[in-house]
């Protein structure tokens, strides 16, 4: 049974929060590391020392996240490589006040823009300006000033993400995989090998200081092939996407609604790798009395309460089929049902399932039985599960999934085994006469599925 499940990653160093949502591709079955696709991210620069209304929030897609990671990583490397590190011949006059310490050598202090137009620039030892390129919004403006600690945390969050994606836990093998003809496995394996190799090269390149970054506008595209087997190269995406004119708009998102987990309000944090709570730093004089958490955020998998976008996402010109085109090629070859684009597949399955659903006394709206049917077709209790998983699912008016709240820790732990659709994906039929609905989903360890309307 093909399954594509949502991935949520949240990285919470003290001064920023990086949230990444993605789909886990079924192609992960062949890869040493799971392969993620349709990655979206939200970065909040939420340093406790900065007033809340000045927190910059940046959202974007995989290519932009890769560009951001490349730019920050390259810049950090430039900062570290700056001669100031070890040069003992001081050839610059150094004022006493640190605030005006000379900037790092200007020729090395700038990382240049990539396809996304992100660049960073040093302003003395302790200040850095990040130019957001096409990630800029009306709220952020074209650039934001970062302190060294913010830069450090941002770089770590991005590094954690880059590592984590390749380190995602392996899925259990599923039966359908064994039915795929051998030649198709070989073809898929080749693609995966290319993808993984390229991502390895990318990781090397990422940290490797590369002055060419500046002058090579294709850097962003070439360096972001982390999921080459399942992702459309940014160049193709760009062709398929009208240029973004307004800085207030993000580039077209992938199909569906961009999830917007509420920063700082995760409804459930799954403590498999718990976020390290902020620990107060030891006070060292009166000015050191605010908490100085020290451990970069461990990735935490969360299912956050989601909210609709503050402003409507730009209408995506790309149809789901376009997104699925490349991703499904190996599967086409394999002849597996994987070939169906996810949204399309889900949509059709949901609609097929609906009429077959057994109704119950709690089915006050048809979507309750549709959700039940959806999971009855997918829910196979994983080995070792000995408790019931409960989720509160919020449906949007158009029948898409708006929010997932795992109600117990185990529910969060096993979220990726449930066959849960992605936020924004077609799921059930549109709601009639109501804006939203909340449905409780109960997945028993014996395979039973129950649903009822919460509100």
């Amino acid at each position: 049974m093909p399954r594509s499940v949502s991935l949520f990653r949240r990285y919470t160093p003290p001064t920023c929060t990086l949230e990444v949502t993605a789909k886990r591709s079924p192609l992960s079955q062949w890869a040493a590391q799971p392969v993620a696709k349709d990655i979206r991210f939200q970065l909040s620069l939420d340093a406790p020392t900065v007033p809340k209304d000045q927190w910059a929030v940046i959202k974007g897609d995989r290519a932009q996240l890769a560009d951001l990671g490349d730019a920050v990583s390259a810049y950090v490397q430039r900062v570290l490589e700056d001669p100031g590190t070890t040069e003992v011949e001081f050839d610059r006059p150094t004022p006493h006040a640190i605030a005006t310490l000379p900037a790092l050598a200007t020729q090395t202090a700038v990382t240049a823009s990539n396809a996304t137009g992100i660049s960073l620039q040093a302003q003395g030892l302790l200040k850095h300006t990040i130019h957001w390129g096409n990630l800029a919004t009306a709220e952020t403006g074209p650039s934001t000033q970062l302190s060294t600690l913010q830069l450090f945390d941002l770089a770590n969050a991005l590094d954690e993400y880059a590592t984590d994606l390749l380190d995602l836990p392996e899925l259990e093998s599923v039966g359908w995989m064994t039915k795929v003809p051998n030649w198709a496995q070989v073809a898929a394996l080749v693609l995966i090998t290319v993808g993984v190799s390229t991502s390895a090269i990318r990781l090397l390149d990422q940290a490797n200081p590369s002055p060419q970054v500046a002058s090579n506008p294709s850097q962003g595209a070439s360096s972001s092939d982390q999921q080459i087997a399942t992702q459309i190269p940014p160049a193709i995406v760009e062709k398929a996407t009208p240029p973004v004119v307004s800085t207030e708009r993000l580039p077209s998102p992938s199909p569906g609604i961009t999830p917007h987990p509420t920063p700082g309000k995760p409804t459930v944090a799954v403590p498999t790798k718990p976020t390290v709570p902020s620990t107060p730093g030891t006070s060292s004089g009166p000015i050191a009395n605010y908490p100085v958490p020290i451990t970069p955020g461990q990735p935490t998998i969360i299912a956050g309460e989601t909210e609709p976008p503050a402003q409507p996402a730009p209408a995506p010109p790309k149809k789901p089929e376009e997104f699925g085109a490349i991703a499904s090629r190996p599967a086409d070859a394999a002849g597996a049902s994987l070939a169906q684009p996810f949204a399309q597949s889900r949509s059709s399955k949901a609609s097929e399932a609906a009429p077959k659903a057994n109704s119950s006394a709690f089915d006050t709206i048809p979507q309750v039985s549709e959700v039940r049917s959806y999971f009855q077709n997918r829910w196979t209790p994983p080995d070792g599960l000995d408790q019931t998983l409960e989720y509160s699912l919020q449906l949007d008016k158009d029948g898409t999934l708006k929010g997932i709240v795992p109600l117990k820790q185990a529910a969060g732990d096993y979220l990726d085994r449930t066959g849960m659709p992605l936020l924004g994906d077609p799921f059930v039929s549109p709601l009639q006469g109501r804006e939203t609905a909340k449905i409780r989903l109960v997945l028993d360890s014996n395979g039973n599925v129950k649903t009822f309307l919460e509100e």
Partner: protein
Amino acid sequence: MSSTTKPRFAAPTVLPLDTQPDPHQLDNIKTQLDLVLLALEALAGIGSEAMLQAASDLQVEDLVSDRVSLWRLRQSNPLRKGQGGRKKLDVEEARALVLICCHLAHDQEELIRRAVTLLEQVAEQNREPHHVSLLGDYLDKFHNTYQERMEDSDASSPTQLNHLALKLLIDLLFYSAPNGPRRLWLALLDRARTQ
């Protein structure tokens, strides 16, 4: 959801080397590594015992086995006073020192972060770092140790040494992260290439 536990630090295999550094480049690498360790000493009072323990934790004790071998490795910094015991640092020893530096920086992550936080605060307030005890102590120890050990210390003004010390402090912050070894290694190689 299960998750893999990452090793605290990357294995030496993630410290790549495209081309063998020439002797001049290795000299630069030696200097930089010695200064990073000096900054750790000045900030956290880390001594050779802790460095040897780190070597043991990292299973590189065959490269850095005892105080004498550690002293000889650090003495290989061409800026050091005296020639006694200077040895040629090879790439594997440099890798081992990178891992040790970052292991120790990671151990002192909280302290380093606090020091950088204070540095940002005094900079915002346009005050001298000496006015904060942690930074003042660090700068004093850095100065003293530098002047005690380095040949060119007389030629460097206190302001210049301050700058160097604060830059090293900020660098230590980045080296204290999980991928610190890689950052330090690449910085060393790049600095060696460009000098």
